[in-house]
């Protein structure tokens, strides 16, 4: 059951530009050491309503492992390079680009479309933005997915990553505009 919301949630505020030494940490964007078998590059660009890359967004991903298990291993902040904790954080560079080293998430349930949960913070964003990065393969599973099915085709495509020749994933984010990424709200949140 969903418990009653008895208390008013504390309002969010923008992350601002100066999280400098606070949030980034060593190997924050490497969920595994690059080059380990099965690792892929997940990358893209964050753009504003003018289509300009923004230099001060912070992204977090949270995902199942390759077998579809939800990790519950500590060790995200002090990484050993080998323990897959499923969580990563990346500040975009001066040209709005982010890069994670991770693995393809497995389906958490039989026949489900695997996705990576993505959170976006930034100067100018007064509150976080949630979205999902779906893997492009298995069109049957994508077609069955409840969230994707509820979207018009042109918006649906903003949630599906592009597979690159080297096995990596490209996923661009538009905060506004014609290609505005679909951002999510959750009940009670």
């Amino acid at each position, binding site marked *: 059951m969903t418990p009653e919301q008895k208390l*008013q949630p504390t309002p969010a*505020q923008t992350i601002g530009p100066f999280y400098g030494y606070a949030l980034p940490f060593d190997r924050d964007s490497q969920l595994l050491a690059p080059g380990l078998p099965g690792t892929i590059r997940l990358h893209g660009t964050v753009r504003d309503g003018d289509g300009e890359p923004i230099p001060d967004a912070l992204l977090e991903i*949270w995902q*199942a492992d390759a077998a579809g298990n939800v990790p519950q291993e500590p060790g995200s902040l002090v990484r050993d390079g080998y323990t897959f904790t499923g969580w990563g954080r990346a500040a975009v560079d001066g040209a709005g680009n982010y890069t994670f080293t991770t693995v393809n998430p497995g389906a958490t349930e039989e026949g489900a479309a695997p996705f990576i949960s993505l*959170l976006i913070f930034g100067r100018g964003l007064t509150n976080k933005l949630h979205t999902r990065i779906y893997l492009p393969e298995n069109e049957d599973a994508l077609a069955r997915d409840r*969230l994707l099915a509820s979207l018009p085709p042109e918006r649906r495509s903003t949630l599906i990553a592009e597979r690159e020749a080297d096995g990596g994933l490209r996923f661009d984010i538009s905060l506004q505009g014609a290609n505005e990424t679909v951002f999510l*709200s959750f009940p*009670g949140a």
Partner: protein
Amino acid sequence: MEEGLFQDSHVIEGPDSAQASQDEISSEIREIHSSYRKGIEDGLPQETQPRRDFAPYRSSILRHPTKDLHHADPETIELWSPAFGHQDVHALESDLTIQHNGEPLGERIIVKGRVLDGAGRPVRNQLVEIWQANSAGRYIHKRDQHPAPIDPNFTGVGRCLTSDDGSYEFTTIKPGPYPWKNHYNAWRPAHIHFSLFGTDFTQRLVTQMYFPGDPLFSLDPIYQTITDARARDALVATYDHSVTAHEWATGYTWDIVLSGSNRTWMEDEDAE
């Protein structure tokens, strides 16, 4: 003094570096807030979160989604949070005054409180991260060029894990207000940034804690992105003399409520 003086202060150049006066910004804020209050009188729901589209905060203009957020039922990974353990966070990281060889300058403060979910249950063993300017209003950050002194004994970064009753505690220095480029003569009220995780990833929260009685509240377009007065007040800590330490530090309490947990409750949690 005029335009040039703070040319380099907190500079983020861009189309959104507005040159509006405080009067113009304040009048835009008043208009949005009064329209919100009228909506409440007409039966519209209370807003508990900041407006994403809030033009007086100029950086939001090109960065807020223009389409409604899409309602989704959280699934699998969204119903869990990453795990953090004591190998991730050292106990001493909650004291921001001992990270260098000397004492930082400014008013030493203790900030403590509890992290709860919407049902009032403690959020246990989750990561809390804070960051802030020093007592002169300057961050250790290469983009922060505000001509206030850097304190060699203060980085302004802390972490802790919440305890079993959801409590957190930091020892730090009261941050100073600082100018920023939103509009002419724009100053941020003193604040500490907080980053929090709940038991579900959907509960993730980044916010700012403010200090009671700050004269800059009504002028600040970031604080005022929250149109509802009661919701705004929830970001202001309480001076608490029982937290104040004899000849050592003044004390503040601030509790944080995350959104309702969506995960099915475990038996042993229900027994709480």
